[in-house]
């Protein structure tokens, strides 16, 4: 383990701060996002008519006036496309799971405000939107339910009439001997935590362009997705096409964060309409549609009971999880993800050995919920860290000591936690100690008045010790009953005839910097500069099959595939170089774009010369015996387990006593994601993740009223953090390399948001400790904070 901010070994690319290759086009305005993909001549623009009701029966739809408008080519309803696009469903075998169906356009019943009812195809987007106003749909409103607990009541309206109740998935488990240990503990503390519904709010809304290829009756779908290969599998399955009839391309994507890893109705509709009308069809979402229909996240309730002894050691934890799943389950995750990932992440860095949970994913008349950075981890960490602070207050022990007595110790790795997660390495204690040193914890406490109030502001400090589950492979996904997630990823690396390197991966990028980090990995394997390497991906036609970009799996899984493929290529290059140099392949070293004989630098050939020989571009045959022409390698990588990163976050907040406004004055992160590929980019991930977590902790909330109407449908109502809200993090890395995956990497995409919810919530709790400090719901907007000050009680 090393503590460092920059390089691991001098002279290697991995570990170095390198500015990104992709910046050049993005800074010039030459990025190609979905709306920038050149539109073929005759492109039809698709607009969606959406339900204004949360739950209603469609009585009639009169499309005649819209159809008569100049420039309108067609108006299509759910009844029209019922055969073209059959209802689709996440369909997998798991006890407690019920299959529910969704139609790309609702044929008879709408189930949330924003559910698609009809579509217009027109010459341009302006006319398409005009035509929406000329469609007259008649509805019979039905009773609706938006709240997850209301949806569980026996008399609740049923979202899917063919199901017995609104529970789409449920499950639970309990360790052997749980009850005895739970009851034998000195104390039991119970709390209910509610975690606000949020919206991913990528700056680029969704969109797609489906181009009909007349020559071979196929469709190319350009779409802002995180998972082009999985989309192709899903669309081909639901439309009954062969996969060769469909090419899915993710161009530059303006932010993913999770919601863009699903198959959406508009993708099926543009593809089906493009083939039906033998024409390119384009749909670009506006911000209102984004808030209405791009999957939301969170909206969980956790009933937690912690049994602990008087020394602060936690003996057993019990949690009942409720997840508002929205109106439909979805491909490729179903509704499996959030309800089961909560319990999976609940133990985090802690060593307790008894755990019981129940979990439910419940349908309501709201937009579907799904993955968003961290999935359930920020929520359960908010709950667990909140409990740690409560235990400390109850026992009169410092919160650091309570954590220290419960977290996995340095001498315990490899450690298998209570839900069978393997922690091969980590730095839980070290990260906490270093973060406390940076904030000067003792000094902070010494200067903190008991009532916390100075100059009209209550000041408090919050500590969160967090784990981040990343880099999952096939075994983990199969164990979690996620059949539509393959788990592996793939890279193809080739030495081009001109001696440069082209690598194509199964990944798609939404700003993570893969063109730079994957190039850093290859550069080390092949002894070249990253300037000599081109990275491509995101196109099912030109890239090998794989899982895609989500759940902090880039460095571990795709990076692992890149490393394997370039390692294989290296061995081939050595054989060709050895042949040219009349040496043994074992003695060949690749460095500075050349292959030379170990210890004899002047005996060398350039990769250009090697490539010329390998591609037969020479005067005479230069093929080593047993080798074939060409220099390329393809490899998959499937990591054996998850990678578990860890961090300690410390937030210092000031709460305005008069207004309730929370300001984050300092924010410290000591972070460990194993071997770091590029410190600049990891820091960027953490800073950006903390900003999103800060948003959820303090401002962001998707709100429905009791009729299921969305109240937070603009960026003036749904507040994402600005530059005035997010402090510059004080950040350090500790490196505990993963020992069970090829690169030693661990995921780094989600830890920021996972730590920010608990750190900020605990800091506000500390600031308001005179009023009980009982923060158990988010966001902590001024009105909620004033409520805590005025009505505060509890523990």
């Amino acid at each position, binding site marked *: 383990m090393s503590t460092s901010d920059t390089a691991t070994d001098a002279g290697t690319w991995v570990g170095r701060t390198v*500015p*990104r290759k*992709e*910046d*050049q086009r*993005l*800074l*010039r*305005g*030459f*990025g*190609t*996002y979905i*709306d*920038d993909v050149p539109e073929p001549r005759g492109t039809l623009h698709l607009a969606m008519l959406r339900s204004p009701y949360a739950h209603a029966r469609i009585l009639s739809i009169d499309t005649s006036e819209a159809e008569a*408008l*100049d420039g309108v080519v067609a108006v299509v309803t759910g009844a029209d496309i019922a055969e073209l696009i059959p209802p689709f469903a996440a369909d997998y075998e798991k006890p407690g799971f019920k299959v529910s169906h969704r139609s790309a356009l609702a044929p008879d019943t709408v189930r949330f405000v924003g559910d698609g009812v009809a579509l217009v195809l027109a010459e341009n987007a*302006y*006319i398409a939107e*005009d035509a929406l106003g000329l469609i007259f749909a008649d509805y019979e409103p039905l009773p609706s339910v938006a709240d997850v607990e209301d949806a569980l009541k026996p008399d609740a309206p049923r979202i899917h009439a063919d199901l017995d109740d609104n529970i789409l998935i449920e499950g639970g488990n309990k360790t052997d001997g749980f009850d005895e240990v739970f009851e034998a503990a000195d104390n039991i503390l119970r709390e209910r935590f509610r975690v606000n519904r949020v919206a991913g*709010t*990528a*700056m*680029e*809304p969704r969109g797609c362009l489906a181009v009909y290829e007349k020559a071979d009756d196929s469709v190319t779908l350009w779409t802002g997705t995180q998972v082009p290969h999985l989309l192709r599998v899903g669309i081909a399955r639901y439309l009954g096409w062969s996969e060769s009839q469909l090419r899915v391309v993710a161009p*530059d*994507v*303006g*932010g*993913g*964060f999770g919601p863009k890893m699903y198959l959406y109705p508009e993708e099926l509709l543009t593809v089906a309409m493009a083939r039906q009308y033998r024409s390119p069809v384009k749909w670009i979402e*506006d*911000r209102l549609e984004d808030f209405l229909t791009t999957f939301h996240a969170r909206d969980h309730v956790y009933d937690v009971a912690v049994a602990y002894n008087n020394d602060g050691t936690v003996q057993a934890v019990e949690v009942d999880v409720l997840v508002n799943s929205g109106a439909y389950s979805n491909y490729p995750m179903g509704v499996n993800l959030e309800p089961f990932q909560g319990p999976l992440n609940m133990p985090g860095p802690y060593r307790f050995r008894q755990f019981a949970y129940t979990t439910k994913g419940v349908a309501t008349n709201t937009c579907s919920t799904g993955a968003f950075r961290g999935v359930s981890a920020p929520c359960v960490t908010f709950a667990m860290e909140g409990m740690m602070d409560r235990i400390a207050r109850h026992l009169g022990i410092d919160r650091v000591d309570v954590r220290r007595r419960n977290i996995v110790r340095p001498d315990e790795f490899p450690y298998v936690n209570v839900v069978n997660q393997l922690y091969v390495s980590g730095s839980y204690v070290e990260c906490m100690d270093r973060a406390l040193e940076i904030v000067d914890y003792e000094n902070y406490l010494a200067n903190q008045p008991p009532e916390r109030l100075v100059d009209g502001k209550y000041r408090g400090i919050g500590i969160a010790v967090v784990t981040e589950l990343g880099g999952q492979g096939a075994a983990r996904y199969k164990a979690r009953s996620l059949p539509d997630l393959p788990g592996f990823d793939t890279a193809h690396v080739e030495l081009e005839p001109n001696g440069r390197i082209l690598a194509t991966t199964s990944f798609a990028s*939404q*700003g*993570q*910097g893969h063109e730079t980090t994957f190039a850093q990995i290859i550069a080390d394997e092949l002894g070249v500069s990253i300037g000599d390497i081109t990275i491509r991906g995101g196109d099912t036609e030109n890239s090998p099959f794989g899982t895609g970009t989500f759940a902090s799996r880039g460095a571990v899984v795709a990076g692992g595939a890149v490393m394997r493929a370039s390692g294989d290529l290296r061995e081939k290059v050595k054989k060709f170089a050895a042949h040219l140099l009349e040496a043994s392949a074992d003695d060949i070293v690749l460095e500075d774009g050349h292959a030379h004989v170990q210890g004899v630098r002047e005996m060398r050939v350039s990769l250009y010369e090697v490539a010329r020989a390998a591609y037969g571009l020479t005067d005479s045959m230069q093929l080593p015996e047993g080798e074939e022409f060409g220099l390329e390698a393809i490899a998959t990588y499937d990591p054996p387990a998850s990678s578990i990163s860890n961090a300690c976050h410390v937030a210092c907040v000031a709460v305005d006593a008069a207004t309730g406004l929370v300001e984050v004055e300092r924010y410290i992160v000591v972070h460990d994601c194993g071997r770091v590929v590029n410190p*600049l*980019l990891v*820091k*960027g991930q953490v*800073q*950006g*993740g*903390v*900003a*999103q977590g800060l948003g959820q902790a303090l401002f962001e909330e998707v709100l429905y009223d009791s009729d299921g109407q969305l109240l937070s449908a*603009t*960026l*003036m109502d749904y507040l*994402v*953090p*600005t*530059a*005035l809200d*997010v*402090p*510059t*993090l004080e950040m350090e890395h500790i490196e505990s390399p993963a020992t069970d995956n090829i690169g030693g990497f661990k995921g780094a995409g989600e830890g*920021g948001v996972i730590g920010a919810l608990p750190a900020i919530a605990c800091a506000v709790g500390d600031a308001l400790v005179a009023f009980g400090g009982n923060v158990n719901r988010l966001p902590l907007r001024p009105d909620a904070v004033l409520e805590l000050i005025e009505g505060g009680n509890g523990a």
Partner: protein
Amino acid sequence: MSAARRDVRITVNGRTYAVSVEPRLLLVDFLRHECGLTGTHVGCAHGVCGACTVVLDGASVRSCLTFAVQADNSEITTVEGLADGESLNALQRAFHENHALQCGYCTPGFLMSLTEFLRETPDPSEAEIRERLSGNLCRCTGYANIVRAVQAAVQEM
């Protein structure tokens, strides 16, 4: 729906476009579709996120809230007009060196807003920088590196 078209003459990054447009055509759609300058992005279309910011006669404007006809006889600079051939300008370079962008979708709006800001405020404090940045939303970076980039650009300019 289609009102009488109007002739406009708009200079964008030094090139003059004389075309006839619908009065309701948004400036951002004019730039993207008539001029083919797709570097200016639409993030919200209601004037909050700032992704569509361009510089119109020296002032930054939201091109999603401006009609093309309002820009008649104006000079506009978009993100495509910042670099000098192959070389990025000082602000673009500082964004690159300080990793002030991730997905890059909001970046053109930040660059254009800052172009006006740094002309008017050549030596800004961090508070002034953050105040200015608060008119643009970025969902990826958490802003710290954008602040650093502006500070670095100021040193260089």
